[in-house]
């Protein structure tokens, strides 16, 4: 791929971004290629050294906030005609609920993941609570003089304590996974607003 092809492909992969953001990136990567060529690399080598268009696209999506992408998408490309404004106003009862629904779906997906994390940690906390209540029960039995009946809750306390420690690491791992997943979904949602790279 030569420089021109690479930059054209990058431009189409980033279309949907605000124009200034696209131009700035094109200039940045173009300069990088030129500097490598100046140092003696061939054009093909210089392009290959930059990395793939898809990598740049993914990194760019991480950097740009979702609001910016949405605003760019809904911003009209030209001034609206009078009848279009009338149509938008009349169509309000139709498009507004649809828009709200789409927004609510995105929000609820995030809420589901976060509730999952909260639920996991709630289980962990209740296990800790169970350990202390079992110890308390054992203490009560001992004070009342029935040392033997204290053994059962004491055993339970030790068992649950083991379970708590085990579950703690599980909770941390699961939380990390879920947070990573929400980030991936975030990039996925942003992708909807930016054109996919055309197959060469």
């Amino acid at each position, binding site marked *: 791929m030569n420089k021109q092809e690479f930059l054209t492909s990058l431009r189409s992969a980033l279309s949907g971004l605000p124009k200034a953001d696209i131009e700035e*990136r094109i*200039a*940045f*990567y173009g*300069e*990088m290629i*030129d*500097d*490598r060529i*100046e*140092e003696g690399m061939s054009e093909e080598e210089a392009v290959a050294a*930059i*990395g793939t268009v898809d*990598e*740049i696209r993914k*990194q*760019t999506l*991480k*950097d740009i906030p979702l609001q910016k992408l949405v605003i760019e998408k809904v911003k009209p490309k030209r001034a609206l005609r009078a009848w279009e404004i009338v149509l938008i106003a009349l169509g309000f009862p139709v498009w507004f609920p649809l828009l709200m629904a789409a927004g609510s779906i995105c929000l609820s997906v995030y809420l589901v993941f976060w509730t999952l994390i909260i639920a996991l940690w709630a289980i962990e906390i209740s296990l800790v609570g169970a350990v202390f209540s079992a110890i308390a029960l054992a203490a009560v039995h001992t004070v009342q003089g029935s040392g033997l009946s204290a053994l059962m809750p004491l055993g339970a306390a030790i068992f649950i304590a083991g379970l708590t420690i085990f579950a703690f690491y599980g909770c941390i791992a699961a939380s990390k996974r879920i947070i990573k997943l929400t980030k991936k979904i975030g990039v996925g949602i942003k992708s909807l607003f930016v054109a996919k790279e055309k197959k060469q």
Partner: protein
Amino acid sequence: MDIQLKRGLLDVCVLAAIKNEDSYGYKIIKDLKPCIELSESTLYTILKRLEGAGLLTVRSAEHDGRLRKYYHITNSGVRRIEEFKEEWKEVISIYQFVMKEDKQ
């Protein structure tokens, strides 16, 4: 390595690369190569972040009939490097303690 920690380290690395004289994208990548391999897209993100935080400024200058962007460190940028040096004295003494205890 922890992502937050790595991000902070890369920021200081790039600031250090432009500290003594203004530099441009490809030169920064080359200068950092012995220390860390930085991809173009990562560098772009870092430069944007540093510019947004007011730690560097950007100017375009002509070079060989084309425009090249040069990055210049600001006073806040220099201060950031000084802060980093102070913070890392602490980190190094912690590291030395850990190594000493580990050997015993």
